[in-house]
């Protein structure tokens, strides 16, 4: 991945871009490491000025706060890679949350059945999204926006718009008999011992494992490579024999499945199907994925960047909270970071790309 001009191959160095000046090199370094330096600087700053920020408990808290959005962001990253977009992830997650509560509390199903049903639902919604986009040619933003509305409405119909909790009164007047299984709740509440007792929550383990899997898939396998090819030039990718339709549908299915994983974790943490929660999931996840463009000068969707983007927002919010910044400034700060990251990505790397003829 290095861009240093070494080992001239072929006849001679080309006219364009024969040497980069020191200014060009500086720009290169700024694009590549700027965001990570900012992240590091922020950690140092908060460690010095916010008491209690530096420490394993606080670190784990940050991880936990970004775990669900991070998982959703990794899913949306896959759709960004193929040049698409998935706006339905937030409502897929809340639908999965409602479905899991409905399955256990009202239908009295086991945790395993519930989890499988939710994952299947996520994959199915992804499949429908993908088919809408590749078969009926509805533009990605519109198809997934439509799906978002559809799901937001659909998840309220079975309970007539109410949240689901153990012992709730059903529309027919009887009382729900089911409960959340302890195994299911442990996904949201159990903490593993790691250095300290009861340190690492299950959701953080999920985030790390899924993050590594998505990274390996996108960066190291040929499937990931071909998905990037589709995102860069769909026609060319098709003409080298890539099954564009299949990969695009697969990207939306990954996105839907990961969103339902996020929804399951949310349900396990809350212990109820809360109709009002999860409203911020979509925007936070998209922000993380887009901030990820700026990491390491990638200027394209990538799993590592997405994870860093999610972490960046988490650290910033946690640090500011500990320095007593009011909660209502949070969205402003997130938006500000996103805009800066986008400027970073598009203006600086455009300048880099424009340095040749």
């Amino acid at each position, binding site marked *: *991945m*290095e*861009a240093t*001009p*070494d*080992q*001239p*191959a*072929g*006849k*001679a*160095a*080309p*006219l*364009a*871009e*024969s*040497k*980069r*000046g020191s200014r*060009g090199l500086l720009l290169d370094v700024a694009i590549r490491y700027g965001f990570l330096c900012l992240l590091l600087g922020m950690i140092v700053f908060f460690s010095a000025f916010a008491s209690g920020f530096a420490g394993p408990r606080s670190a784990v808290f940050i991880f936990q706060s970004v775990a669900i959005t991070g998982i959703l962001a990794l899913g949306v990253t896959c759709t960004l890679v193929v040049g698409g977009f998935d706006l339905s992830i937030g409502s897929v997650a809340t639908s999965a949350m409602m479905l899991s509560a409905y399955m256990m509390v009202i239908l009295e199903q086991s945790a395993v059945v519930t989890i499988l049903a939710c994952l299947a639902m996520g994959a199915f919604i992804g499949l429908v999204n993908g088919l809408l986009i590749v078969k009926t040619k509805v533009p990605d933003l519109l198809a997934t926006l439509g799906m978002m509305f559809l799901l937001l409405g659909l998840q309220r119909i079975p309970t007539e718009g109410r949240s689901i909790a153990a012992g709730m009164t059903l529309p027919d007047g009887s009382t729900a008999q089911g409960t959340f299984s302890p195994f299911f709740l442990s996904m949201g509440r159990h903490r593993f011992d790691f250095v300290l007792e009861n340190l690492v929550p299950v959701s953080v383990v999920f985030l790390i494992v899924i993050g590594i899997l998505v990274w390996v898939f996108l960066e*190291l*396998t*040929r*499937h990931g*490579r*071909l998905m*990037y*090819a589709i*995102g*860069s*030039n769909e*026609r*060319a*990718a*098709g*003409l*080298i*024999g*890539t*099954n564009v339709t299949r990969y695009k549908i697969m990207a939306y299915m990954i996105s839907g499945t990961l969103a339902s994983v996020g929804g399951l974790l949310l349900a396990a943490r809350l212990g109820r199907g809360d109709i009002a929660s999860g409203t911020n999931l979509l925007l936070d996840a998209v922000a993380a994925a887009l901030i990820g463009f700026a990491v390491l000068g990638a200027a*394209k969707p990538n799993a590592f960047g997405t994870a860093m983007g999610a972490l960046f927002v988490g650290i910033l919010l946690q640090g500011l909270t500990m320095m007593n910044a009011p909660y209502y400034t949070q969205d402003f700060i997130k938006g500000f970071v996103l805009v800066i990251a986008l400027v970073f990505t598009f203006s600086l790397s455009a300048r880099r*790309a424009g*340095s*040749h*003829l």
Partner: protein
Amino acid sequence: MSDLSCRISNVDKAFGENRVLRKLSLDLPAGRVTALMGANGAGKSTLVKILSGVHASDHGSITLLDRPFAPATPSQAIRAGVVTVHQNINDGVIPDLDVASNLLVDRLAERGYGFMLNRRRMIRDAREIAAGMDLDIDVRTPVAELGVADRQLIAIARAMAHAPKLLILDEPTSSLSAAEAERLFQLIEKLQAQGVAILYISHRMSDIRRIADRVVSMRDGEICGVFEGPDIDYEGAVDAMLGHRMTEVDFTIPPPGAPIVSLQDVRLKSGSATFSLDLCENEIVVVTGLLGAGKTALAQALFGMAPVYDGTVTLDSDRYAPRSPNEAVGSGVFLSPKDRASNAVIQDFNLARNMTAPFLDRYGRLSFVDRRQERRTARAMIGDLAIVCQGEVDGIGTLSGGNQQKVMLARWLSQPSRLLILDEPFQGVDIGARRDIGHKIRATAGERATLVLVSELDEAFEIADRIVVFHDHTAIAEFRNENIDMNAVLAAVTGSATNADRRAA
């Protein structure tokens, strides 16, 4: 008629430490067509960009009709009278609007046009412009419905609305058929008679022979030869541009091997005539014809993008009917498509990844890509094809057009194939790179059948063992590329031969 229109003196331009133009001086007389030749990377596009206001020069001066000319933006250049028609035709027109709006769009952008559109006035004005240029198009047609040639003429007609002193045409015929190019040339001659200076940039010798009054060669940012007079020394111009003598392409046609792909009584679309064609091992077959003659349809049928309408195709004696490019590649039939920027180049990938993209399943196992092996292949191909680059991890966009084309060829040469189809492999490629590509195709042709689709006859003669002429989606004539009667080929291509002659040919 020989007044000076534009004088460029001592112009320098550098990007970083890279000096692209070095004290370049050039005069462009009014009413003459000056052809500018230069290899990829010689600085032609930079010169055009300076004249059209995209870049500013570092040093030197330009005068236009004895007045200093230093445009800061493209629109200033246009207002001063320098109009450029770019290579990429779609930059010159807005497909969603109709012809009238396209012809008048610059006026709409001017201050003082008024807030509301006057549709009737627009159509009247547009008709006037179209009539002045002998354009026979209904101005209410959306541009999206027009062919490439008409779009090009519209872009030029729009340019003419500014009454330019200098018209720059950057590779205007690269997507045009011979007949369409002739329309363009007639238009250029008309402008020439009106006293417009024309700077014509092209790699195509046939165009330059047809239209140029003088030929200017450019190399490494300098003018290295001006050729004019009644007998222009075209070979000298090419030598000057390359910096060395161009060797004639000289080869003996090798004996073809057994047929690899056979098309029997194939009909490409409903209503077209059937034809049969054998593509043999160790043979390079060139299919040529006008735009829309069915060359692309043939390639698409063989590459699994659209089935043949009727008839049978066999590959190594087995029935061959691929349903997708994926299946075609799997059976060893490769296609390098035309218009590489939109159909072939994966802009976000580096050179190595561009080359290996179709064959990732052959690098590494369990779907994991072995990057070391990938880069090794890329390095070998870079050496093989003399691709000018820093290394195999260069972004594909940093390469010149000719070298990008070589990468696309390397992509399909990196693995053995049964049939290699090359659709317009010399598009936007300078003559040096063109010879390199031709040599490489010939040198590797032994183990496979090779099918090359070109619309330029010069290119066909340079590469072919056998030339097949297409017309109306069928093969109408076939020539062995030996002591070939160029006029007979030309007649077949333009369809001026009668049906009976074609059958006899």
